[in-house]
């Protein structure tokens, strides 16, 4: 006899007063999660007044949370008609110390990591130089596909010297690699140098990410070292630019991304 007349309702739970995170950030994150869950694109989100009533927060706080989501590109204002979910990217990852899993779950989505390939190979000269090992030393080459809610988002190509973590050959890598390295192998990656560039997807990358040959993707290259400065891993992370963006919080005194230099890519063997 139940008539399931089920619409999307915009219920937001109460904001946790014990959480030290600023209120507008809590609301922003909750709103983001709600939107990622699925809110019809043609439907304006509830008015400020309704959001205030739902959350018990002030108009200023509600406005600030919404303004941030507009700035992020998750919402767009259509003056007169309301505020809507923006057409473009709905997925956001934050850089920092959170794992992929944590970042995705924070949005209310389901992260899945698939190990595409794991093999024991011999380091080529470029890899050996970066990792400060002998050319020809054994390394693990791990290829993993990260999906969010069933859709491919990132493919990782990671190289870790066997001597750093011999048991990687048989480890469960569907979770956080960093947590495994820190926990089971006792070599937590401590600091890293990362670069970000735009490249055209091709071959295996394009296939795994399910994008057309030549589609733009982000490429993050990382060299991570232990607290004693020992290189632990190098990774090339190809990211679907339509599904992710990276956000950096520049703390007090460091506003703006510093341009350190311009790489002449002809000089360097980046393979």
């Amino acid at each position, binding site marked *: 006899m139940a008539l399931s*007349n089920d619409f999307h309702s*915009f219920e937001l739970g109460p904001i946790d007063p014990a959480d030290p995170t600023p209120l507008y950030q809590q609301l922003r994150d909750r709103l983001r999660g709600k939107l990622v869950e699925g809110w*019809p694109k043609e439907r304006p989100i509830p008015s400020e007044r309704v959001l205030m009533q739902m959350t018990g927060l002030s108009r200023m706080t509600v406005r600030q949370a919404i303004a941030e989501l507009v700035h992020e590109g998750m919402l767009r204002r259509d003056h007169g008609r309301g505020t809507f979910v923006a057409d473009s990217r709905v997925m956001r990852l934050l850089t920092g110390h959170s794992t992929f899993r944590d970042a995705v779950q924070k949005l209310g989505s389901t992260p899945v990591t698939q190990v595409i390939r794991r093999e024991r190979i011999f380091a080529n000269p470029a890899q050996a130089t970066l990792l400060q090992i002998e050319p020809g030393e054994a390394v693990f080459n791990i290829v993993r596909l990260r999906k969010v809610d069933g859709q491919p988002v990132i493919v990782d190509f990671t190289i870790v010297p066997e001597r750093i973590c011999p048991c990687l050959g048989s480890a469960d890598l569907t979770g956080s690699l960093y947590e495994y390295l820190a926990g089971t192998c006792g070599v937590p990656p401590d600091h890293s140098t990362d670069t970000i560039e735009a490249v055209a997807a091709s071959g295996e990358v394009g296939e795994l990410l399910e994008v057309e040959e030549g589609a733009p993707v982000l490429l993050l290259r990382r060299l991570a070292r232990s607290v004693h400065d020992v290189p632990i891993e190098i990774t090339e992370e190809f990211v679907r630019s339509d599904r992710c963006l990276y956000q950096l919080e520049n703390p007090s005194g460091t506003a703006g991304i510093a341009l350190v230099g311009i790489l002449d890519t002809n000089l360097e063997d980046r393979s």
Partner: protein
Amino acid sequence: MSSAASVEWPTGTVNGYSYRDIAKAIDHSLLKPELTEQEVEAGLQLAVLYDVASVCCRPCDVPLASRLLSGSDVRVGSTVGFPHGANTTETKVVEAVQAMDSGAAELDMVLNIGQLRSGNIDFVRSDIAAVVEAARGRALVKVILENAYLTEDQTVTASKTAAVAGGNFVKTSTGFAPTGAVVSDLILMRASVPPDVRLKAAGGIRSLDAMLEVLDVGVTRVGATATQQILDEFKARAAGLPAPPPPVEASDDY
């Protein structure tokens, strides 16, 4: 009376809702005490024409409604202990059984407002539970809280009590009190009952925008007398046309 097969839903959406979404969320209300038989018949025809979820009619009109709505996709609903909620539990149960025996599949009952405000929650609960029990397997029970007379705490208590007693819906108002559906009340109600208890907003929903606003906060049924205005406005907006003019006589009540 035309059958369900002959009803054609307008195409187009408004805010992502189809015509069917909106129409099937409306309980067309025919509860004013002064309505003549002809006015009730006209209202029943309107309900079928616009293909709403149900009609909520006065107890004496249930046999008529059952007859005229048979073969349509519009359900027959009626009221119990309406509008004051002060009838004895026994009377409410008899009302419920009579309505169901005459064909009602939905019962909008008013809880005992005075007892709630007196803090006699056990009584309020058993009063609701008796109607729920009588309706088991036969009709949906919507419990009217009448928020106009309640504090926020009382709205919360009433909602929880209605849920515990087995009500299928909690409903804001009879439409005959000074105020009706208020968004802040609905938010409280939604937060106070489990997910399987649904929300009905009634009283003062006279436009499509008012209906859309309450749908956002979790309402899945709206009691309205302005059904024609709401759905005509939907059709116009879905077709990209200007809204039809509001009725000349805007009445203040439900």
